[in-house]
C-alpha cells in the first residue's frame, strides 16, 4: 500500500477504452499518476496519446473504463465536469488562446466566469502569473501579436490561473520554432521544481529525461512500457520502444 499523502494517485485510469466510430483508439489503458509526480507520455504519432490525455479531463468521453480524480470517479453522469476541469489545467499543442481577448483577459476569463473570483483579484493573480512566465509587459497585447513561445507561456498562465491540482500538456512545444522550444520548456521546468503534478505528452526526450519521474510509452492504444527515465532509455522494455528511440535523437 502506498502512503496516502505522497504516493496516492491523484488521477487514475482503469481499463480505459475509446472508440471513434468503429475505430478503437484506446484499447484498455491503466494509468495512475501520483500527487507531485511528473509523467511523460511518449509514443508514435496516432498511437492515442492525445486521446488518452483528453479522456483524463473528459474532453473525450471514454467508451469504457473509469477515470478517477482526487478520490472520485469522474466519468459518471452525476459528476459536475466543469468543476472537475477547473482542477486540471490543460495546455494544447496549438495554444488555443482566445484571440479576441487580451493576454490578461485570457487569464482572467475562467477565474471570473467559472470560479466567480472578483475582477480585481483575478487581475492580480493573472499579473502575478504573467510575471512568472516572463510576460508581464504583454498583459494588454492581443495573442496574435505574440510569438509562438509567448503564446504558449500565456496558455500555461491561463491554465495555472485556476490553481489546478494537475497540469496536462499535449505536445506543448511541437508547434514551435526550434528557438522557442527552450523558453517554454524552461517554464515547465519551473513548474516541476515547484512540485506540480504533470502529465506531459512530448517528443522532447531531453525534457522527459531530466524532468519526468516516469515515462510511459503508448503504442496502438496501449501502454507498452512504463518505467523511470534511466531504465526507459538504457534498457527499453519492449522492442517497439527500442525501435522508436532509435529514430529519435536523445
Amino acid at each position, binding site marked *: 500500500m502506498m502512503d496516502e499523502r505522497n504516493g496516492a494517485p491523484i488521477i487514475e485510469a482503469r481499463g480505459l477504452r475509446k472508440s471513434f466510430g468503429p475505430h478503437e483508439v484506446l484499447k484498455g489503458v491503466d494509468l495512475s499518476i501520483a500527487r507531485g509526480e511528473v509523467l511523460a507520455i511518449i509514443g508514435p504519432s496516432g498511437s492515442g496519446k492525445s486521446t488518452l490525455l483528453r479522456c483524463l479531463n473528459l474532453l473525450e468521453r471514454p467508451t469504457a473504463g473509469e477515470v478517477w480524480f482526487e478520490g472520485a470517479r469522474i466519468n459518471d453522469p452525476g459528476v459536475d465536469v*466543469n468543476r472537475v476541469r477547473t482542477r*486540471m489545467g490543460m495546455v*494544447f499543442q496549438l495554444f488555443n488562446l482566445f484571440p479576441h481577448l487580451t493576454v490578461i483577459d485570457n487569464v482572467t476569463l*475562467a477565474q471570473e466566469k467559472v470560479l466567480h473570483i472578483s475582477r480585481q483579484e483575478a487581475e492580480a493573480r493573472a499579473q502575478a502569473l504573467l510575471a512568472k512566465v516572463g510576460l508581464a509587459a504583454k498583459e494588454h497585447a492581443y495573442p496574435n501579436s505574440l510569438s509562438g513561445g509567448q503564446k504558449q507561456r500565456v496558455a500555461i498562465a491561463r491554465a495555472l490561473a*485556476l490553481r489546478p491540482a494537475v497540469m496536462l500538456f499535449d505536445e506543448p512545444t511541437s508547434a514551435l520554432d526550434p528557438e522557442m522550444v527552450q523558453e517554454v520548456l524552461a517554464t515547465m521546468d519551473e513548474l516541476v521544481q515547484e512540485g506540480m503534478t504533470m502529465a506531459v505528452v512530448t517528443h522532447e526526450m531531453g525534457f522527459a529525461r531530466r524532468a519526468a519521474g516516469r515515462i510511459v510509452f503508448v503504442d496502438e492504444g496501449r501502454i507498452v512500457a512504463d518505467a523511470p527515465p534511466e531504465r526507459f532509455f538504457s534498457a527499453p522494455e519492449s522492442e517497439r520502444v527500442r525501435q522508436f528511440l532509435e529514430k529519435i535523437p536523445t
Partner: protein
Amino acid sequence: MSLLGLDAVEKSFPLLLHGALVTIEVTAMALVLGALAGLLGGLARVSPLMPLRGLAAAYVSVIRGTPFIVQLFFVYYAFPQVGLQVPPMVAAVGCLAVYSGAYQTEIVRGAIESIERGQVEAARSLGLSTAQAMRYVVLPQAFLRMLPPLGNEFVALTKNSALVSLVTVQELLLSAQLIISATFQNFAVYLTIGVMYYVITSVVSTGTQLLERRLKVYV
C-alpha cells in the same frame, strides 16, 4: 426641366421623404427582429438537441424555398380567411423579419462553425460550460466573421422592403407610384427613389463596414 418632370418631384418631395422614412422604419424593425431570429436560429442550428436543430433547419428550408411575395400574401390575404386579420405594417415587418431571419440563421451558423474546435476545447478545459463557451469565446469571434455577410443581408433586406408596397404599406415605392399616378412623371420619380434607395443601402453597408473595422482590433 419640366420635360423630365423634376418639378413634379420637387412638389411631392415631402411625400417621398415620408415614404423613405417608412422604408427606413420597416427595414430597421425587420432588421432587429430578423437579427434576433437569425441569432436564435443559428444557435438552434448548432444545438446539441436534435429537435431544435431540425426545427431551425425546416425554418430555413421553407422560407428560403418559397418566394417572399408568396409568404407576404399568405400572411396578408390568407390569414384573414382563418379569422386572423393582420395589419399591413405588422405583416410587412413580420414577413421581412422572418424571411431575412432565415438567411441570417445560415450566416450565424456558418460563422459559429468557422470558429476552430480548439477554442471550445480550451474554454471547456477551463471549466466553462457549453453555454459559457458559446457566450464568451465563440460568439464574440463569430460575430466579427458574420459582419460582412450580414452587411449584404441588411442591404438585401432594405431592397426587399419595396415589396411590402404590395400590401398597402405606403413606403417609398408606393409613395412614388401614388405620385406617378397623379403626375405621370415616371422618369423623374423612379430616378429619385432609386437614388434614395441607394443612399439608404450605402449607409447600411458603410455602417457595418465601420463596425467591422472597429471590432477587428485583435486580428
